[in-house]
């Protein structure tokens, strides 16, 4: 995969203008009410969820792309009402926190009446029982498919509705390169997955959904803290989700993101990035928890070794990297384990062992310049001019189009994300 030219991070409130404007629009502490609630949108949502074929851009999905942010915010309330009616059929007043940023201090109250209430009850009756979990999964897939397959088709919004949505800030070469609102379809998908888990706690499909969605983001170096927090709230000890958490913190600790965050420090703008040391600490904690749960998770061990090395604990790092190298047969992981091990051996002032590890990395990825440049550097140290020239020429040769997995290390963990999503789609009964 070529390195992405722009990477992104999703953060709650990134723009100075956002909290100011949002504060003006912030609901009062007293609960507000929606009178004259109508079920038409919820009915359409149920129909779309039932009709959509996962992974297809079909008529149902196209209809979902026409929903504006205002519609999606309404659906956020409507779907939760439906779930409440299914759980407590006699409830007649629904207080639900709306989907806006910053989070409001009080919920919105809805009291459906008359024909609207009857329609709501009818929908609840239809999906109550075994059908509810299926509907939630289907709903999650609808919103996921809009966001992944049809993002370019989604309805345009006016600025006012866009202002209270999460923000995606693009980062290029350590600098802010653009900003846009994040699709609320992701929030709707998350709502469905979370409730699907509540309905059937032993079903791992919601975990797989979170993994796929986090992976899809991380594949593009879009690090979405909202998804991550929600995922770990539901599955706090899941090794895969903890692994992706560790990867996110590790990525945010790199100079690429630290340099991006630097100008914001001490200002009211708040990208969700802590200091390098804090992010590395969080990454280490996450990888250690993964390995406690699953000691055979070689990729987590690899990353733990890398993080320990970056924290200056080179002997510990080398031990973890040796173990990771022994525990994996996947060439790209072997490459990284050898490469990082070489760095640690060099830091431990063992140049011969470093050379051995760099050679192993270079053998695993002959076109990769990174180990060759290091080999040239270490050859210079030995006075081996011939090797310096050979390795330097191979590393810098303009005639070669080099590929180096190192350039995409921050997204390595998500290399199977497309497959994860395919599996999630296939996990919905009735999927093609």
């Amino acid at each position, binding site marked *: 995969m070529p*390195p992405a*030219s722009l990477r992104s991070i999703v953060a709650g409130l990134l723009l100075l203008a956002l909290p100011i404007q949002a504060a003006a629009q912030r609901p009062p502490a007293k609960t507000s009410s929606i009178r004259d609630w109508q079920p038409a949108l919820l009915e359409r949502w149920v129909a779309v969820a039932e009709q959509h074929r996962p992974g297809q851009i079909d008529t149902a999905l196209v209809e979902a792309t026409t929903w504006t942010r205002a519609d999606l915010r309404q659906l956020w309330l409507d779907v939760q009402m439906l779930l409440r009616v299914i759980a407590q059929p006699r409830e007649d007043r629904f207080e639900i926190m709306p989907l806006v940023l910053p989070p409001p201090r009080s919920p919105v109250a809805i009291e459906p009446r008359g024909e609207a209430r009857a329609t709501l009850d009818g929908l609840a009756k239809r999906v109550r029982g075994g059908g509810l979990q299926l509907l939630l999964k289907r709903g999650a897939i609808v919103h996921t498919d809009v966001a992944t397959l049809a993002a370019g088709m989604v309805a345009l919004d006016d600025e006012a509705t866009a202002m209270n949505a999460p923000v995606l800030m693009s980062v*290029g*070469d*350590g*600098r802010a*390169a653009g900003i846009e609102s994040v699709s609320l379809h992701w929030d709707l998908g998350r709502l469905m997955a979370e409730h699907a888990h509540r309905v059937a706690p032993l079903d791992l499909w919601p975990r797989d959904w979170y993994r796929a969605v986090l992976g899809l983001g991380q594949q593009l170096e879009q690090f979405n803290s909202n998804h991550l927090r929600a995922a770990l709230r539901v599955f706090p000890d899941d090794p895969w989700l903890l692994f992706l958490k560790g990867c996110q913190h590790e990525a945010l600790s*790199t*100079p*690429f993101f630290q*340099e991006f965050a*630097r100008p914001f420090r001490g200002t009211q703008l708040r990208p969700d990035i802590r200091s390098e040391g804090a992010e590395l600490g969080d990454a280490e904690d996450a990888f250690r928890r993964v390995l406690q749960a699953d000691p055979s998770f070689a990729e987590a061990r690899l990353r733990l070794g890398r993080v320990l090395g970056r924290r200056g604990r080179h002997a510990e790092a080398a031990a973890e990297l040796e173990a990771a190298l022994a525990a994996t047969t996947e060439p790209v992981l072997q490459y990284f384990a050898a*490469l990082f091990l070489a*760095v640690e051996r*060099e*830091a431990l002032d063992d140049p011969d062992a470093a050379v051995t590890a760099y050679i192993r990395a270079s053998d695993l990825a002959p076109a990769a*310049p*990174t180990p060759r*440049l*290091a080999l*040239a*550097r270490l050859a*210079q*140290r*030995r*006075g081996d*001019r011939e090797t*310096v*020239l050979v390795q*330097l020429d191979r*590393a*810098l*040769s*303009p005639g070669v189009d*080099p590929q*180096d997995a*190192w*350039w995409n290390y921050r997204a390595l963990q998500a290399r199977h994300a497309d497959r994860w999503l395919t599996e999630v789609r296939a996990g919905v009964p009735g999927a093609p």
Partner: protein
Amino acid sequence: MRPTAAIAVAGALWAAAAAAQTFRSGVDGVRLDVLVTAGGRPVAGLQAADFEVRDQGVPQQVTLVSEADLPLGVVLTLDLSASVTAPQLAALRRAGLALLDGLAAGDTAGLITFDHRVAEPVPLTTDIDRVRTALRAAAPKGDTALVDAAAAAMLRGDAQGGRTLVVLFSDGVDTASLTPADHVIETAQRVNGIVYAVWAGDGDARFLRDLTRATGGRVIDIGKGGDPAPAFLEILREFRSRYVLTYTPSGAPDGGWHALEVQVTRRGARVDARPGYFTARP
């Protein structure tokens, strides 16, 4: 007669340079590029006797080589990451071309560019037009592998031999190298060649300061979006005004780090030279 003499002297020095790689055990000879300034201006006309060089605290007998006798090898090392804007790129090209125009016959130049990868469109060559052409074709993209690029440039210059100047331009901190900065600082202590950096960023330039200091060069901060051309030309002028001293170490313990002290007899003069060099332990 001078061209013949120059060739003969240069030939002898090339041979000395090849034998004087500072990473070797049992160093045969050490070459030092020394800048002497007073009031910010280079001091000319000094003789070997005006210099006092101590290697591990032991005074050395130095020879002064005329700068005119040594061709330069200039490794132009340019940050072409995505943060370089179109106007900056145009200014960078102009600066590079101006520097190339300032080279003399017999000098060599090469071009190393870096984004997330380090590339060498033109290795050190006397065919300066090739470098000009490559410079005009350069286009920015990707992240900034500044540390790796610095290593590559120093290694290239060192492997080439001769008197090497690395002119390193960057507008941002490293966001893409695997190599830890301190490993490359150590490389700087082991290679021949001087690194000058032109910094057009607004972040932390510590790596560039440490790197250039280790080789006896310096950082010229032109500010964010500044024009690099005056800095490039200043570097070339300054480099040409440096004194080249050689000596065969005597009395200093061999192997490991050799701390150097260079002083001149001229009052009020400031001396800039590398603070030391590494040799392999015997």
